[in-house]
């Protein structure tokens, strides 16, 4: 909420400052010339997303007579807002490019020239933003061939339409334009060349590795390495890190009532925040390691006073940690765990 308000005021300010000189000196270009120009622009741009400015907007959308033979899907971008990660502008722009590339790859007839993917950038095309009536990002708008007024918001892509990124964007496009985009082709994580290099390296390295393994002198024979790996996996699991990854949980939340306050602990079982899991996982691990330390390392210390002191500290820390975890768990789940005593005792 706060962000869009901030953006709104910023944009309004800019609009007052910017001149509203809308000029529509249109050449009597025929439709096909415009289309051809778009095609050539598209072939020069990365993944087929045409970068438009105020001039381009007026040329291809305002001055051209409706119905136009093409639709344009516009992505509204603002470089100055890329730092605000919660808007996900860069991610959405990447996905937008992906939809465009997929559209290009899957169409090669007359359909290809019926839809163009464009983006405009705020700092260079402020008047276009105003013309479209865009005052909050992220914003994606489809201008169909029959749309005469740019401020007509019917072509706006809803929040839910880019919730599932490229896939849902493509669905939106297919639904509105009756064109096919096809299944999204995401670039593989590793390119083919990279994979073949890695495979070749593995194949070459294998005999050497095996030789060392047989000799028994690798890192793998180090107990401490295995132990720390094991403790790490334990920590990773019990801290609910998989939960954080799968659910994409943030480390902490902002309090709704008081934006300056941060919420680190989420009440309610089955859900957790990132930092919360790590804190509790840390408490778990500390107690266990202290126990192992006290019974295995501390006994080798000669000085009795040191032993006593360390032991005392270990006991205090452990009991504090256990208490804390139990308290947190009861608070989180809302259960009051108690013992069952014989009724005659009460």
């Amino acid at each position, binding site marked *: 909420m706060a962000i869009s308000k901030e953006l709104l005021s910023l944009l309004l300010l800019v609009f007052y400052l910017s001149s509203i000189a809308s000029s529509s000196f249109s050449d009597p270009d025929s439709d096909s010339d415009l289309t051809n120009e778009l095609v050539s622009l598209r072939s020069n741009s990365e993944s087929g997303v045409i970068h438009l400015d105020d001039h381009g907007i007026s040329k291809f959308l305002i001055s051209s007579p409706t119905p136009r033979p093409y639709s344009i899907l516009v992505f509204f971008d603002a470089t100055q807002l890329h730092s605000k990660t919660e808007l996900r502008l860069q991610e959405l722009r990447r996905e937008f490019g992906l939809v465009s590339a997929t559209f290009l790859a899957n169409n090669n007839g007359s359909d290809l020239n019926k839809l163009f993917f464009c983006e405009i950038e705020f700092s260079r095309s402020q008047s276009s933003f105003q013309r479209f009536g865009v005052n909050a990002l992220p914003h994606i708008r489809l201008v169909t061939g029959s749309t005469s007024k740019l401020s007509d918001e019917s072509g706006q892509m*809803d929040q839910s339409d880019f919730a599932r990124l490229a896939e849902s964007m493509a669905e939106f496009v297919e639904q509105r334009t009756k064109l096919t985009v096809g299944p999204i082709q995401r670039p593989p994580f590793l390119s083919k060349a990279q994979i073949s290099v890695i495979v070749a390296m593995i194949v070459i390295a294998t005999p050497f590795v095996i030789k060392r393994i047989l000799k028994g002198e690798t890192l793998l024979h180090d107990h401490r390495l295995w*132990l720390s790996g094991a*403790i790490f996996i334990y920590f990773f*699991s019990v801290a609910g890190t998989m*939960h954080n990854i799968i659910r994409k949980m943030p480390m902490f939340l902002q309090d709704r009532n008081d934006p300056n306050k941060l919420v680190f602990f989420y009440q309610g079982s089955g859900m957790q925040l990132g930092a919360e899991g790590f804190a509790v996982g840390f408490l778990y691990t500390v107690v266990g390691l202290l126990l192992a330390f006290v*019974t295995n390392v501390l006994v080798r210390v000669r000085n009795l006073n040191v032993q006593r002191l360390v032991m005392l500290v270990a*006991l205090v820390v452990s009991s504090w940690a*256990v208490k804390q975890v139990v308290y947190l768990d009861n608070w989180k789940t809302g259960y009051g765990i108690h013992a069952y005593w014989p009724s005659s005792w009460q």
Partner: protein
Amino acid sequence: MGAKKASPDLLNSSFSFKSLKLKTKQQELLLRVSILGLVYVLAFIARLFSVLRYESMIHEFDPYFNYRTTLFLTEKGFYEFWNWFDSESWYPLGRIIGGTLYPGLMVTAALIYWTLRFLRFFVHIREVCVLTAPFFASNTTIVAYFFGKEIWDTGAGLVAAALIAICPGYISRSVAGSYDNEAVAIFALLLTFYLFVKAVKTGSLSWALGSAFGYFYMVSAWGGYVFIINLVPLYVLVLLITGRYSMRLYVAYNCMYILGMLLAMQIRFVGFQHVQSGEHMGAMGVFLLMQVFYFLDWVKYQLNDTKLFQTFLRITVTSAILVGGIALGVGTASGYISPWTGRFYSLLDPTYAKDHIPIIASVSEHQPTAWSSFMFDYHILLFLFPAGLYFCFKRLSDATIFIVMYGLTSLYFAGVMVRLILVATPAVCLISAIAVSATVKNLTSLLRTKQKVPQTGSTKGVGSSKSSSKVTLDQSQPFQKNGAIALLVGVFYLLSRYAIHCTWVTSEAYSSPSIVLAARGAHGNRIIFDDYREAYYWLRQNTPTDAKVMSWWDYGYQITAMGNRTVIVDNNTWNNTHIATVGRAMSSYEDEAYDIMRSLDVNYVLVVFGGVTGYSSDDINKFLWMVRIGGGVYPVIKEPDYLVNGEFRVDKGASPKMLNCLMYKLCYYRFGELVTEYGKPTGYDRARGVEIGNKDIKLEHLEEAYTTSNWIVRIYRVKPPTNRL
């Protein structure tokens, strides 16, 4: 678990033993056996809370299918069961039961039943089914004892048995009445592992054979056997890498793998997967690698020339890997080896299921685990686990390596899916038992040998004579006595908290049958909602025997088992398209849904509705999954149509499609006239805490047939088409 620690005191102070004139060893044996006996009983009775609080009945969803098939098995015999084609579910497709289930559980229960009949105990098969899970949990404690003894010593074994007897992570799936595959599978899993570890330790063919049979039992009982067939090769691989290859390992693995594989192929549901599916290829690869190792060993022995051997080694290893890689590549490309299934893949890449398989992601037990669930199911075992790991690494052997690997892999999987906490439980109990046992043993021996020279006599502490020869860890503790006492008190306090936690959790959280619901009334009294059974019995008594009932798949097993009526889809989610069709019908307008229902010959529609009682896992809350699953197959159904700004609502602000879809209409039909809560308007939905948006619902093609006393289950009759003029 208190029993083990009590032993030194008993040994010191008990007069009865002295008067019986038993030798120390006999005393120890007597103690051990009686502790085990008590733990065995404890494991059983702790699981009877559900019977005490409710009644002796089958719980939840899947167990009803298991119960139905077991009943069939005991009535018609094994061959009928094996060839059973069930036309009462998945109408009109039907389902081949014999070929699509793991028969281990049913056969086990039937065998127990027949044995009891043979001994002239005339019990009902339902009681056998209800008590199968506690019985096998008791058996698991015995296996845990032997396993603990194998990897550490008898003390650890006893503690492990006691810990696992009441561990909530295990109890959650093995209370009386939860007649599910896991009930016997955890026993089989632990048995297989124990026998395999024993085989690796002794190199004996008979133990390996036992392990193969344990594996066979596991394969017959639960799909989780894939965990064994991947963990065991992984363990062998780690042993190979760390230079622990031995003849014992060779014998154990080869025998277990080959025999286990051949036996597993006898289960029709598994079939040739061991040689065809990608999930099982790791085991085969390790099997071949073992042969290469053995061959190299032999050549080395023959050659006596290191340089020549090195060259030979390099050539062999490279070519073996190349051949293996090519075979795998060709097999996969030609389709002979099937790629990994979605469920397996989602374990390795946890984000996979969410994006690709909504039917897996929709099940609540497939959700990732938050820390509180770990705490709830393991309690102090979590604190003890790292200590146990440390002890294991201090005394590395083939057996401890195994338990560490088992613990870590299963704990990782438990983090991915809540239900897999169950698989990790035995390992967590065993490793924690090592921590408890080793600590307590060190401390008590210190207390007892205080007067003697502090550097001796620690190993015989609690009388675990068998392992004393190889105990290297238990250094004498030069602690002061008070330090040891403080630590002991701390450990005992923790263990007593564990016992309290486990009892409470078992009694309050894990004993609910979920087919009968309980709630606290305004005055703290318990209210029982028995609506499900009411509805199913109504179906059984009041509908034609060939009636087809459409409901969401969750209730399919219960309707066939208790209502004895044909269902369209059930909990065996084998045909996604069929489920999607039902999802589509539920999320369409009534007239569109009517066409779908006509095409499926549906006579009755059953929905579960919690708006009156505040029961939150009802069909409205599951509705988005119906839309997602339906939309996955039929693109006409779009999730955004049912949402308002990404939000799921049922009140006035809900989307028009939502307010008029079949599910909404069936759930809220006549609900607008009802006052559910004092001081609230009519039509106030207590499960979602809102006033509904469409109070005037008219049904055109369906009519209300039955609504249970608390409105939890509502059944509608599909009207026949009107006469054509």
